[in-house]
């Protein structure tokens, strides 16, 4: 069984621990007087961060865990304050404690939280020997905005603009997951014609994300002309997103109303992008020096993929065909197929991104439509709802519990939450000079991770 997520929720008389696997959802009750929970980290290494977060959020002690460090709360956070408990107001004032940073007490090099290796704020602690990484630690949650708490007590309409802004580069994916939950709550089915529009935008978001990653990776691979070329395509794709949605990141684009699309002009744009990427892929076949630099770098083993429950690009780079899109008829009927590689290295992740851009563009041509369909959402019914979706980095899981028409618990698991943990294993034994390339080859967003 693959662990998808593990999180807690406060009920009136107890805490509820919800553990989501790929084949079942299990729930445990934890009493409020002496809240404690048995760790599952021995079996599922990625449970460590889920469980450390549960402790920070709710003050639930994790038994039989060998990592009890705080995850979200930094040194200044007051002890015995558990902000996801209902008694804490959304904007209660944190009385900062005098800080004594523990990070710098250890040896090794500490980079961050403001740093050149990653666009997001995050701290990395690196230990090297003979220019080789022997230990790597990710210290995240600098960007912790408490989105989960922010959305509590809000209606779907009130929460929507915030969900759009959790992680800009995955805004479309998060909006679709959010709408999926809205649909489930109102016991309605979205018409295929609207789904098709959303899928089109999701694929465009994937193209943008992959082009961005590829252009930076090409630069790390000493291929500046490749990077230059990909950046041009990236800009054209972002402008295409703006033409269709009115926004370069598609904020506010996913709803039940469709904006009209200039089908012919958009088709021409997609066709042009497709031709350019095909030409580029052909050229790359002759760039043996580039592949040489990527080959064997940042290797992920099958064991790590399976034990950390890695999804998306990370799984597919090791020949595991995990992709939520294969479950949708609308995808399979419009030319979708899964691209996988064998090696699990940076070269594999580069190749898959290139393939996926071609597949997405091809599907986008099929999905492009300008039909309009009036559709209205019904009144939401209280309950618990789960949405799963294949974003550009991999499977996204969103959970919402609705109580009296308002959100009583929001939870989101982005692939970054798994990838950040696995990156500590993946980076071991790699040359320090390849740090930037490997970090870019692994889909890792701290905006999506830190929430």
């Amino acid at each position, binding site marked *: 069984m693959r662990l998808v997520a593990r999180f807690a929720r406060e009920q009136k008389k107890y805490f509820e621990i919800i553990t989501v696997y790929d084949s079942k959802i299990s729930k445990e009750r934890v009493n409020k007087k002496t809240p404690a929970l048995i760790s599952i980290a021995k079996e599922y290494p990625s449970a460590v961060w889920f469980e450390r977060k549960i402790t920070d959020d709710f003050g639930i002690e994790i038994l039989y865990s060998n990592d009890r460090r705080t995850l979200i709360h*930094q040194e*200044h*956070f007051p002890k015995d304050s558990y*902000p996801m408990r209902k008694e*804490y*107001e*959304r*904007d*209660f*004032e*944190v009385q*900062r404690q005098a*800080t004594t940073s523990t990070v710098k007490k250890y040896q090794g090099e500490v980079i961050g*939280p*403001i*740093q*050149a290796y990653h*666009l*997001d*704020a995050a701290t990395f602690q690196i230990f090297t020997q003979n220019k080789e990484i022997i230990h790597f630690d990710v210290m995240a*949650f*600098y*960007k*912790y*905005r*408490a989105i989960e*708490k*922010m959305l509590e007590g809000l209606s779907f309409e009130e929460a929507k*603009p*915030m969900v*759009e*802004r*959790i*992680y*800009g*580069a995955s*805004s479309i994916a998060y909006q679709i997951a959010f709408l999926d939950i809205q649909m489930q709550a109102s016991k309605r089915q979205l018409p295929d014609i609207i789904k098709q529009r959303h899928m089109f935008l999701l694929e465009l978001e994937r193209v943008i994300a992959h082009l*961005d990653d590829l252009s930076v990776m090409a630069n790390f691979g000493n291929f500046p*002309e*490749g990077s*230059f*070329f990909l*950046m*041009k395509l*990236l*800009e054209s794709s*972002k402008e295409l997103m703006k033409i269709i949605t009115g926004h*370069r*990141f598609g*904020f506010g684009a996913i709803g039940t109303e469709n904006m009209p699309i200039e089908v012919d002009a958009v088709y021409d744009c997609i066709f042009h992008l497709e031709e350019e990427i095909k*030409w*580029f892929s052909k*050229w790359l076949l*002759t760039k043996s020096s580039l592949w040489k630099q990527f080959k064997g770098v940042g290797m992920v083993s099958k064991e790590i993929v399976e034990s950390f429950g890695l999804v998306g690009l990370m799984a597919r780079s090791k020949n595991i065909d995990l992709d939520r899109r294969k479950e949708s008829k609308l995808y399979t009927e419009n030319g979708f197929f899964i691209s996988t590689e064998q090696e699990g290295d940076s070269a594999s992740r580069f190749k898959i991104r290139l393939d996926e851009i071609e597949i997405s563009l091809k599907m986008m041509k099929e999905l492009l439509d300008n039909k309009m369909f009036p559709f209205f959402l019904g009144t939401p019914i209280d309950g618990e709802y789960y949405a799963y979706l294949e974003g550009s980095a991999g499977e996204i899981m969103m959970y919402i519990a609705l109580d009296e028409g308002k959100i009583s618990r929001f939870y989101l698991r982005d692939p970054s939450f798994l990838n950040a943990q696995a990156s500590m294993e993946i980076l071991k034994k790699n040359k320090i000079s390849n740090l930037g390339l490997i970090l870019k080859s692994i889909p890792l*967003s701290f*905006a999506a991770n830190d929430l």
Partner: protein
Amino acid sequence: MLKLLQNEINRKKAMRPPIVDEELLRLQRTIKNAIKSKYDSSLKLYIVDSGSCGACELELQTLFNPFYNLSKQGVEVVYTPKEADIMLITGTLTENMYESVEQAYRELKKPKKVITIGDCPLMESPLRKTFSMTDIKRVSFSSVYHISGCPPEPRGIIKGLIKYIETV
């Protein structure tokens, strides 16, 4: 030999400059001249993500792509505040980033100029205040210039930078 020749043809095609409209050309010229008149060599920016969704950083990164090409106009990103002419701040200021932002400001080269990018730093975006965020006014900046948007588009950032430079 044929392989080398083909590679050179491909390289030339890849490096073909994009077609840029008149407005952008004018913005590029204006910012280049403004930088030349107010700064010694180039305008050095230090970017601090204080808790953003990542969109503002991506748009800042876009400024250096072949379309906007700000590096050619004299704009440079630096990685230590000591070297920077301006500190750019993106995102809401989280409690967890507060100390890093304050420290970066302390180390910033005098006259310590700050520009907030996007609606989040001033809490003007749809995100609501939570316990994990703090007021940017807590950091005692001497002066702050603001470029609004969610996120501001690349042209908006360039226009904002030009307006700011004119005030220097």
